[in-house]
């Protein structure tokens, strides 16, 4: 901090610090804090509270009947006192019913049903699959782009990567929907070839298979995998590739021993981004499966918020996903032997 003041002077230094603080506050502390806080409490709305109130009013009605028919003043006063007591209890319970007390605890995290937990695990697995497939698809692509030079490179970059991404994500997903639908492009071609019979619903139900989601997701997030890899591959000294070849190495060995080790930080960043995006993707599974394939966890989170109206549970789900994704990042970094420093480069 002292060096910051030395470099920029007191006024500008304070301003820079303030901007940094604002950034951290607005982007990390406030949203994350709000989400975690939300996930840590629930409203104790016991289901039988209404029943209790109903019973109290029943009792009071009986007591009033008793009081009305009673002639002995002392006993009548006794009934009245009982009625007042019950009324007080009922008022208290009614207050609780309309505004149940908050209780803090971890119950939101432990209350997940077996089905939801299964979907959670499956989503993580699917996201890993998408990441792995995207890596396999993107590595050769990134390699080709990084090593192409001159005008050819610009063409490859533009045609293969930029143009598809000039289109909105939703439109791209819908495009795949149209391709894979029951009466979509592929089934249409197959019908034209006489291989399926659309009139008798003899189509191939691509969309009912999770791989349809994988496909659309890889297509949607391919850029996030390719660009970090292109960036690191571009910094590779091509002489190293030639040197390895000159020393007799096969292409496979050159990739394994020279190119991939060099590209590791880029691969790690690409994997992390793709994994995070696919694990948290809502639109792609929602659109592609239309409820006919299995849900992804993000869809559950959405429903907790907007259909169950249980924001606490939704927050807990979201935080769980965040924790697992963060763990994944740390594992990836350990696995690839890259530090934050390498990734920042």
């Amino acid at each position: 901090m002292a060096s910051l003041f030395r470099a920029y002077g007191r006024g500008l230094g304070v301003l820079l610090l303030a901007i940094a603080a604002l950034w951290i506050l607005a982007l990390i502390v406030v949203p994350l804090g709000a989400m975690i806080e939300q996930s840590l409490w629930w409203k104790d709305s016991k289901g039988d509270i209404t029943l209790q109130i109903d019973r109290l009013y029943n009792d009071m009605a009986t007591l009033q009947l008793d009081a009305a028919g009673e002639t002995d003043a002392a006993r009548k006063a006794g009934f009245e006192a009982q009625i007042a007591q019950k009324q007080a209890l009922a008022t208290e319970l009614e207050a609780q019913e309309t505004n149940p007390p908050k209780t803090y605890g971890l119950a939101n995290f432990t209350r997940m049903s077996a089905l939801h937990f299964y979907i959670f695990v499956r989503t993580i697995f699917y996201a890993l699959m998408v990441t792995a497939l995207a890596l396999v698809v993107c590595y050769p692509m990134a390699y080709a782009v990084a090593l192409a030079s001159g005008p050819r490179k610009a063409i490859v970059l533009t045609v293969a990567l930029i143009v598809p991404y000039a289109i909105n994500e939703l439109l791209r997903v819908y495009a795949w929907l149209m391709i894979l639908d029951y009466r979509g492009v592929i089934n249409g071609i197959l019908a034209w070839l006489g291989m399926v019979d659309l009139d008798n619903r003899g189509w191939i139900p691509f969309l009912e298979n999770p791989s349809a989601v994988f496909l659309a997701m890889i297509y949607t997030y391919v850029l996030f995998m390719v660009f970090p890899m292109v960036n690191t591959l571009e910094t590779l000294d091509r002489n190293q590739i030639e040197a390895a070849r000159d020393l007799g190495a096969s292409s496979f060995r050159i990739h394994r021993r020279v190119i991939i080790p060099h590209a590791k930080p880029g691969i790690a960043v690409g994997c992390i981004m793709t994994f995070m995006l696919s694990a948290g993707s809502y639109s792609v599974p929602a659109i592609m499966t239309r409820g006919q394939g299995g849900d992804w966890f993000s869809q559950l989170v959405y429903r907790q918020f907007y259909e169950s109206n249980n924001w606490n549970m939704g927050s807990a789900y979201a935080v769980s996903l965040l924790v697992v994704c963060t763990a994944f990042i740390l594992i990836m970094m350990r696995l690839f032997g890259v530090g934050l420093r390498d990734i920042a480069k």
Partner: protein
Amino acid sequence: MRGKDVRLDQVSIRFGDSIAVQPLNLTIEAGEFFSILGPSGCGKTTILRTVSGFIEPTIGRVLIGGEDMAGKGPNERPTALIFQNLALFPLMSVAENVAFGLEARGVAKAERLKRAQELLELVALGGYGDKKPSDLSGGQRQRVAIARALAVEPSVLLLDEPLSALDLKLRQHMRAELRAIQKRVGITFIYITHDQGEALAMSDRVAVMSRGRLEQVAAPDTLYAEPATPFVATFVGEQNVIRGTLRRISNGAASVDTPLGPIEGREVGTPAIGAPVLVMVRPERMTLGATRDNSIPVTLKARHLEGPSVNLECVTGGQTLTVTLANGPAMRELPSDLVLGFGREDARVYAEGALAHG
């Protein structure tokens, strides 16, 4: 390790429309330290990459040890290339770097590391196997690159200006070292450089190239003493160049009319009588005082002390002549009017041609 001879047979290389290498024949003997010297863009690196297999000649054949290399990639040739920037693998240890070629050949780990250790000892880096290349100095990295190339037991080692990144002291040290390593392993070295000092100091023979053409192939002494073309004469060492017209030739002795008066010299090639010619005299071949063959009166303009020698910058008739003399007491006080003398044998007369420096 055994050296093999390299033969370029009518090799010509084009990139699109531009001709990088004009058709040329070149034979490099087995076990020879052969340098290709020339300014940047003369085609020397192209030739090296052709021998190593990264470039196929447009026309002609490359033969190594008598075997035609057509269609063989860099990994199938008995050559190893040392890159200008060395291209060591930064993420591997020094020993892994050296062992990489053996790894590629499927040699077991223990065996290849043992071999790497031997090679590192050969280049006096025995204790550095576990370090990363970035931990080493420039000269040490240089030696790692040599060890890595030697590990695959090449018959021909190709070096692409490997010393250019080093500072002067280290460069001079590495010259001797490279020469010693070549003597020890006995394989053919083809060394690319634009530094005439390196080429002259290390090589058995030197080829001088200019604009994709071979100018001269000769032993260093011959190259310096008897350059075949004006380009070689001016590229290798210093020259005083005097333009003139050839008046007479008899028995190889040429008389030239120049703005500085008639000069007697020795013809090189066959310039025509009456044609414009270039007379070249090395600064150290000139002396103070008139000689029997040639004497030119000049005015001393500047004296540059080099230490063991002194360079005198003289002018006459709008032309600057430089004389290099051994330093001594007589050099401290010089009159401004001098006479420069040189023998007939020291003035070489060339037909007009391209010079190395404009």
